[in-house]
Every structure is written in C-alpha cells, then in structure tokens.
C-alpha cells in the first residue's frame, strides 16, 4: 500500500513565524503535491514537484515556498505565517506518466495561525 505521511496532524503557530510542513512518501513516486483545503473552495494546488530539486507553482503559491532535496520528501514552507494561512494542508504523491492520474494523499495537517 502507498503510504504518505505528514509530520504533524495539528499545528498552532503565531503570526510571523516560519512554519515547516513535512511530507514523506514510501512508494518511490516522482510527483509530489501540496494542497490546501478550505470550506467551500475544495482543494487548491499550492506547489508541485516532478523530480528532486524541481518545483512548479500551482494555483495559489503566494506566501509559500517548497523544498525537495530527496525523492521521498517534499516540504512546504510558510516564510512568515499569516492568519489567512489557517487551513488544512494536504500532501499527495503520484507516479510519473500521462496515464498516472491517481494521487495518493496523506492524512493532512490542520494549521492554525493566531
């Protein structure tokens, strides 16, 4: 079974803090993704990576950065957390290939910025 794990289930941070969200997958997937889920908005793509050290902006990258130093690990960084970044953050991974549409999700990190 594919397993995607996220470092924290719940996180509370203060405005202005630097926040790191970690994601690890164990299936040797090339692609990794970070989403945020908000009520009424569904899942929105923040960043994705299709290879080590490669990254592409998603639909809402502002205020975020990412790092992928190893194939299995993809980190989301909030340089200076703000209250509008309070959300559920979901990491996902998938195989490379035009037919590989299915993404496997981690359990999510509920981040609260006060």
């Amino acid at each position, binding site marked *: 079974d594919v397993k995607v794990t996220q470092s924290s289930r719940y996180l509370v941070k203060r405005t202005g803090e630097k926040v790191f969200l970690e994601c690890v997958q164990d299936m040797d997937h090339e692609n990794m993704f970070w989403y945020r889920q908000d009520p009424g908005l569904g899942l929105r793509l923040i960043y994705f990576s*299709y290879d080590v050290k490669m990254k592409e902006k998603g639909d809402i990258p502002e205020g975020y950065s990412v790092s992928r130093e190893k194939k299995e690990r993809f980190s989301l960084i909030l340089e200076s957390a703000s209250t509008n970044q309070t959300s559920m953050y979901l990491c996902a991974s998938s195989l490379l*290939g035009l037919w590989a549409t299915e993404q496997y*999700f981690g359990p999510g990190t509920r981040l609260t910025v006060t």
Partner: protein
Amino acid sequence: DQQVKQNSPSLSVQEGRISILNCDYTNSMFDYFLWYKKYPAEGPTFLISISSIKDKNEDGRFTVFLNKSAKHLSLHIVPSQPGDSAVYFCAASLTSMGAQKLVFGQGTRLTINP
C-alpha cells in the same frame, strides 16, 4: 475562476437508494476525471476515474458518467450504504511538466440516512 464546480454542497439520501453527485467543468483540455472520497480527519482517497474518451466507467456500486458536450460528469452510487457518508470531490486532470495536475471541485457532503 472555478474550472471544476460542484454546485450542491450537500446531499441526503436514504440507505439503499441511489446517490447521484454532479460536477461541471469548463476546460475542454481536461483528459481524465476522478472522484475522491474524504472522511473527517483523513486525506482524500481515490474512488473511480474516467478517461475523456469514454462516457461511462463502472466499479462495483460506483459508476461515473461523462457527458463531454455538456461538460458534465456524475457519480452514481447504488445502493447507498451508511459507510458512503463522506465528502466527495470531483477532480479533473491536466498534464503539466510530466505531472498530472488535478483541479478539484468544492466538494459535496453526502449523508446516507438509515
């Protein structure tokens, strides 16, 4: 600009009856469509998908229908069971840099009543 829309935030169905969840999209370049199911405090899990060249795909109690001319897809669950109560997201796939990016709808909360 919401490219994938689920216009019903919630749906309530009697156990044993058919559940029909709907999804509309605007981008004719989407090549795959997927449905995900999400329980509280868990990440979304893949349910069923359909290629843009097909109009129907069936897997057990779940059937997805695609009407390309109307840019509409639907998920039918027959018969509905209490364990089907969850939030359902439809997603559409676009290829970018070798990765299949998913664009998600807002989600529909399905409640199955005993």
